[in-house]
């Protein structure tokens, strides 16, 4: 399969792995954060830790949109679903994320009309074919998915749809990376930078990381070869005492990003003064809300959502895992109370969650290490 097979070629991968082993100095430890949940998933899915030297430690980052959504926001979304004549639509990833009173799947089994969609435009289509109902789209995601939400709102306005709204939970990646860099327990040497987010934002937003914090950032694709090449590029920068933003994912990411998508974002959204992230707490200017011009499509304005802040479940250490301070199996609940079937925290739910990836693909490794 084109654009897949080339990046999973065993011979080329082994070659890059050997080059990494040659470049990494045995005398030091390298801690490299893969920012995206997609990277984490791919690292485990393709067994990349098996080909890396032991002194390269990969640390999971905050780039999993489902994982960073606090329980209170899940509750707010489900409160909308509980209203009469409402169809709540969301991405598949959201269906198993636990709120205080259960997951969207559980509520659906109890009779709530919650439907999985693959695109917000599907939600708009559902609204068009159910004029007697109100259809709300539970929007989550970083800059990768935010443009499609923006375009859907613009389309809804153009079509004059009046039974459609968006419960907006879009967040932006840079403030989260800055929060991690400013965290007192930060020990990261370099970043495997966001791939799909950067296809929208471009690479410039990360320049402060190299300039102000002296850490290399390599914007990376998601195939095994992409990730290994990005690690190699980071090692070479560290070896040369450099800190730059590099673009490994040129086949998808233009350096300047995607201007039409950025314009759509600017038209529909504005920055919230602050937003709560699971585990990371409140981060200023880290999330998007719908501009007043589009208030008719803003579920938070249309419905009186509870807006209650819910503390993370006792014992769950999602925050530490999100910041890369703890590995998933070091959390007290990992694999016991919290497992993919009964997730306590969202990191265990999403296919991109560090805990789910670890549980699903690497339990044998933890058994060996323990």
């Amino acid at each position, binding site marked *: *399969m084109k654009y*897949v097979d080339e990046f*999973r*070629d*065993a011979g080329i*991968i*082994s070659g890059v*792995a050997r080059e990494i082993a040659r470049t990494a100095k045995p005398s030091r430890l390298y801690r490299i954060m893969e920012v995206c949940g*997609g990277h984490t998933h791919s690292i*485990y*899915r*393709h*067994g*990349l*830790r*098996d*080909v890396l030297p032991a002194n390269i430690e990969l640390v999971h980052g905050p780039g999993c*949109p489902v994982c960073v959504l606090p329980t209170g926001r899940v509750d707010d979304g489900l409160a909308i679903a509980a209203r009469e004549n409402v169809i709540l639509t969301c*991405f*598949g*990833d959201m*269906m*198993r994320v636990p709120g205080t009173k259960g997951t969207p*799947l*559980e509520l659906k*089994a*109890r009779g709530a009309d919650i439907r*999985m969609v*693959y*695109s917000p435009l*599907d939600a708009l289509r559902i609204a068009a074919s159910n004029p007697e109902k109100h259809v709300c789209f539970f929007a*989550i*995601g970083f800059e*990768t*998915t935010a443009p499609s939400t923006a375009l859907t709102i613009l389309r809804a306005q153009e079509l004059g749809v009046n039974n459609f709204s968006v419960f907006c939970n879009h967040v932006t990646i840079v403030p989260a990376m800055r929060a991690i860099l400013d965290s007192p327990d930060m020990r990261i040497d370099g970043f495997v930078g966001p791939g*799909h987010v950067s296809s929208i934002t471009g690479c410039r937003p990360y320049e402060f990381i190299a300039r102000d914090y002296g850490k290399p950032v390599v914007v990376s694709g998601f195939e*095994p070869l992409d990730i290994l090449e990005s690690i190699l590029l980071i090692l070479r920068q560290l070896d040369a005492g450099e800190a730059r933003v590099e673009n490994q994912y040129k086949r998808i990411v233009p350096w300047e990003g995607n201007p039409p998508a950025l314009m759509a974002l600017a038209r529909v959204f504005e920055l919230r003064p602050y937003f709560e992230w699971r585990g990371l707490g409140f981060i200023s200017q880290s999330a998007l809300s719908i501009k007043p011009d589009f208030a008719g499509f803003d579920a938070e304005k249309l419905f009186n959502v509870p807006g209650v802040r819910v503390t993370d479940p006792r014992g769950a250490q999602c925050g530490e895992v999100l910041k890369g301070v703890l590995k998933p199996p070091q959390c007290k609940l990992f694999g016991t109370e919290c497992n*993919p*079937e009964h997730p306590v925290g969202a990191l265990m739910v*999403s*296919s*991109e969650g560090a805990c789910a990836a670890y*549980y*699903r*693909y*690497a*339990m*044998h*490794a933890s*058994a060996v290490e323990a």
Partner: protein
Amino acid sequence: MTVLQPVRKTPHFADTQIEMAHGAGGIASRRLVEGLIGSYLSNPILQTFADAATISVNGSNVATTADGFVVKPLRFPGGSIGELAVNGTLNDLAVSAAKPIALMATLILEAGLPTSTLESEVEAMAIAARKAGVCIVGGDTKVVEHGKADGMYVSTFGIGLVDGRVRIDAASIQPGDRILLSGPIGAHGITILLARGELDLQADLVSDTRPVWPFVSALMDRCASGVRWMRDPTRGGVATSLNELVRGTAYGVALYEDCVPMHDAVRGACELLGLDPLHIANEGQFLAVVAAEHADAALAAVRGVAGGEEAILIGEVRAEPKQRVIGINGYGGTRVIDMLVGDPLPRIC
């Protein structure tokens, strides 16, 4: 007068309601069947939780199996609910090494179902049964209110005679045994997913529904003594079947991931939707564990039957890691391949 004692053991099923995941064939299904149903109906035959139950009648081993079909849509590229019901039931018998003798079918019909739809499904059942050389000897029909049964559901019962040359038993597997797969995986599950029309995806793909008895029969004729275990990897896919195999043994399975065959359309859809092809349902494939010294003969036997040309050895039984299925790729990367958790849901990015 005999006072009947309650047969209830303590059920190990804490879920407060039934959800779609309980029917998806993965971990939740297992918990429901073993934890709740098995705790009330417990008996030595049920306790094997095999594809078919084998009972001894006058010295002959008879395999019996029951199956329910609730597929939506009723017709899909490559098949339909009627054909699926016949093949699915026959395949549960086949992987229990049982030559099918007869089938029964119950039709649960929804008021408002066009007669023409019912007629074509009954015809599909007749054709599939005739192809397999069995008769549908009885059944039942029920009609429920409009909107209650997705058009129609089919429930089946099958009976077959177990081939005495083979002993199918997960406990008999040994390190070094090979895992044989009859052909490309995932075609059925992805075909159904796309046929539902909920995703804006199209692919040139048809369900793999077919009877596997011809392959199983050839395999047993060639090397009956080398066949240790068989399973048709339907709901939950190859990953779930292999996990079910190893959990009752002291061994594990290593799967050579790059060897597992699948159509490009299956692979592409799985890549796009974030699904693992090893979790996707099949309706015309089977897995067999064969002794290492019989592996080549077993492969030749299956490949020698029309439609079995793509059969391949995809892995082996290993002493470690115990009770786990490990995937190994071309450059030596490893991962745990777990049972299906929940229903396969698309991811977003």
